[in-house]
């Protein structure tokens, strides 16, 4: 497998190192240059990744690295989302002495997520989870003088340590039972294997380990705290990027187990149901926008799990997963970009009447929340449409019905900020950060609408994204 297959990863790694070196030597006023370096890395990774869109699916690096449609597209999405997060940071961190290092951590974390998306070996998977987690803890607690940020990092770390331990036990069990950690060899071994309780436990623990990165039930508790306490650019990043990688990794793992021997899909379906319901119910009465977004993104993970549960049962499951993740990523980034633009104002009451004073920020917020609800023609609608159709198509109609009921419940809390923004009134002036944040606001806001209207083009791309078939 040529080294060019990991070109995007190398670009990000180089940019991370360059940003770190620059941060060590530049004076604080010049630290925003590191953002430029990071953006260059992102751009290079995007270009290199786009070239892979046409490569035929294959395994590389001794079978540990999958380069199939879903991995390529998910990695592009990860890079894109990371780039948008970079845009949020320069003004936000302008007063921070460790400004430049932030970008290097962010890129390394993105690298971990990309590895997750491509992992085709349990050890590679563990490595990816660890890289993405360790950097994530630091990003969450970056404001080390602010107790809420430190608490968020702490909680993330504790739950993460627990989840990583579970994952390791699971990996060990599977390795012990199947004699290999490579997915292709595992698939061969599983094809003739008998289901055993130990196998189920091993697989279940691996699912839980990845569920932590997705913030799925029961390892979801870190997400609302991170959304509330982490620096807003980091919060935007951590609620989106690791999830994309983790969802793909989970889909790959679930697809590995044949329906006849050991079907993990019902387990994932139940997790999906619990995750979306819990996230929704907890979000209902939040008076803090960032916590509300945090809980909402827990529930959105539940929807993503619906597509994961249908992998192999419906031919469009991967497309639905990718498209849904795209919509979710754009909408969540847009919402956090608004929070960043408004200097992190977070209490819902402080948003009253924003529509009159800051119409653009208000509009982007409303559009992002409506997209999260799934109102057409925004991108979130197409994602949910695919999700429902995949669920009905694959014989999980009850899950589609549950998702619909959850959508109705979610409308209730998505409308609360919208109502406050447009129906409330305020006289106080609103301070904004502006700069590159505004750029990202405009970019992502228009993308929400365009990606819905231009759904055809993106869908044609997404339907080519299948998981690599490991058994002929």
């Amino acid at each position, binding site marked *: 497998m040529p080294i060019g297959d990991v070109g995007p990863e190398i670009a990000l790694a180089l940019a991370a190192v360059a940003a770190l070196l620059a941060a060590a030597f530049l004076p604080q006023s010049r630290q925003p240059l590191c953002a430029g370096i990071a953006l260059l890395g992102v751009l290079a990774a995007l270009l290199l990744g786009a070239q892979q869109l046409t490569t035929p699916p294959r395994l590389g690096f001794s079978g540990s690295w999958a380069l199939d449609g879903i991995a390529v597209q998910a990695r592009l999405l990860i890079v894109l989302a990371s780039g948008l997060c970079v845009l949020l940071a320069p003004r936000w961190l302008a007063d921070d002495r460790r400004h430049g290092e932030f970008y290097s951590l962010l890129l390394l974390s993105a690298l971990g997520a990309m590895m997750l998306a491509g992992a085709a070996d349990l050890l590679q998977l563990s490595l990816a989870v660890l890289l993405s987690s360790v950097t994530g803890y630091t990003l969450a607690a970056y404001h080390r003088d602010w107790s809420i940020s430190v608490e968020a990092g702490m909680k993330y770390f504790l739950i993460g340590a627990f989840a990583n331990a579970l994952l390791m036990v699971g990996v060990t069990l599977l390795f012990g039972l199947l004699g290999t950690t490579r997915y292709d060899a595992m698939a061969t071994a599983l094809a003739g294997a008998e289901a055993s309780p130990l196998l189920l436990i091993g697989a279940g623990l691996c699912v839980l380990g990845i569920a932590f990165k997705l913030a799925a039930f029961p390892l979801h508790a870190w997400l609302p705290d991170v959304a509330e306490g982490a620096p807003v650019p980091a919060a935007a990043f951590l609620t989106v990027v690791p999830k994309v990688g983790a969802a793909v990794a989970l889909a790959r793992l679930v697809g590995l187990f044949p329906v006849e021997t050991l079907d993990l899909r019902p387990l994932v379906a139940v997790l999906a149901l619990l995750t979306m319901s819990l996230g929704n119910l907890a979000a209902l009465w939040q008076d803090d926008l960032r916590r509300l977004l945090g809980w909402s993104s827990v529930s959105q993970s539940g929807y993503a799990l619906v597509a994961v549960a249908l992998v192999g049962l419906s031919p469009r499951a991967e497309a639905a997963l990718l498209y849904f993740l795209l919509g979710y990523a754009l909408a969540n980034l847009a919402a956090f970009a608004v929070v960043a633009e408004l200097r992190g104002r977070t209490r819902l009451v402080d948003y009253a009447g924003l529509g*009159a004073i800051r119409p653009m920020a208000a509009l982007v917020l409303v559009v992002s929340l*409506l997209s999260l609800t799934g*109102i*057409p*023609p925004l991108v979130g*609608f*197409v994602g949910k*449409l695919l999700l*429902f*159709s995949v669920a*009905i*198509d694959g014989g999980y*109609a009850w899950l*589609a*019905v549950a998702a*619909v009921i959850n*959508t*109705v419940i979610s*409308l*209730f809390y998505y*409308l609360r900020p919208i*109502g406050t923004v*447009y*129906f409330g009134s305020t006289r106080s002036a609103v301070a904004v950060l502006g700069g590159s944040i505004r750029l990202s606001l405009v970019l992502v806001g228009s993308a929400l609408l365009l990606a819905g209207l231009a*759904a*055809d083009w993106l*869908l*044609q791309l997404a*339907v080519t994204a299948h998981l690599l078939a490991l058994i002929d």
Partner: protein
Amino acid sequence: MLTLTILVPLFGALVLASGTRLDARRARLCALPFGLVPLLLLAAAWVGFDGSAGAPAFQHVVDLPWIASLGVGWRLGVDGISLSLAAMSALLFVAALAWPQVLGARARHWYAWLLFLQGVSLGVFLALDLLLFYVFFDLSLVGMYFLIGRWGHDDAPRAALKFFLYTLAGSLAILLAILGLTLGDAPLSFDMRVLIERQPLDGGGLRATLVLLGFVFGFAVKTPLFPVHTWLPPAHVQAPAPASAILAGVLLKMGGYGLIRIPLSMMGETFARHAPWLAALALASILWGALVALAQSNLKQRIAYTSINHMGYSVLGIAAAGSMRAGETPARQLALSGAVVEMLAHGLITGSLFFMTGVFWQRRQDYEMAHYGGLAGNAPKLAAAFIVAAFASLGLPGLAGFVAEFQIFAGTFVLHPWMAAIALLGVLVTAALFLQMVQRLFFGTAPQGQPAFADLRGVELAVLTVLLALVLLIGVYPAWLLLPIERAAAMIVGG
């Protein structure tokens, strides 16, 4: 042509939303032309509509790809039913745009949202693609949410939220049903013409029943039928008058229209099997709506509940039309065309009634009927208009309501005599409640110490005259309207 009907108001909404320096008067003048274009285009479509025997069911068809890989397209087209409903809606929107409304500082946005709502509402009636239909259906909720929440009075955001929650629940049920109807049928297509041809789920079975249930639930919420009507009264009472008129005149029609266009046309066999239940639900709405309306002392609430009653007639007609697959064709045609005319008549009549409640609100900020009386002397024009609308609503011959109700009852009587008989009780109660309302507001003596009440003024009078003239025209000379509708009805029920 139909594409422009949708896009012009949407473009107008964009212009108004982004234009910064417009006071209320100029915003209205700027919005009106955008609102008039669809009406003119639809009038042209009506003139160009081929009503002869051999003509295709859907005309003025536009078919452009949108999400080709899912079989979704920008497909528009009209038959007699959708054309008449769309034209009536366009007219009501022009009336709502012209209606003088005290708006305060953010008038520009009011007109922008109204134009937005016009574009998407017309889209619902013109769409020939199930998914496109759904998109417009959902967007109409968003538009109405902002109109009620922002410009309503009292606890408007709460009423708007309740409206959005109920109807979104309904519309998601519709989405699931749409997916259930279309999936598993190769090649995947959301084209209504294809689906009507294919009748995908006519084999019966659990899936067909569930899909039908999804559609019926979704459209019942929108129509609204008992017992999922509870969102309607607060939404109506707290919305500003033009928004109420649009809500009653246009948005409620989407429920009935959807029932005709989708389950009745696309899964006729299954619909026929379950039609008696739908008819029973319609009966419950007729009686419940009428009785509860009679008990209201709040003017707007009373009219809101009569909407439930009237939409019940309409759904009764639809259920009767779909109640069997063969035989009794003339009766079923009659019932279906009656249902459509009822929707049109209700749009015009209740639309004008709600506009008139706006007159009461702007003069006094009070809907309590007990606080009024003897207005016939003070405001004779308002009294005349109100009396015409009230009589039309209770089904007096010579007015539009009668044409509709006669057809529905005649059609239903042949198919389900008992149901028609019970439904007639509803007519008695409505007659009582409208007469009582007219008597309380306009005759008798005014309560002591009430200030004078100004009569209708220029634009108000003009708007109501146009709407009520149409009511009268349909009442005395319905043929021009009935021809295209009856043809479409014949296409749907066969024969």
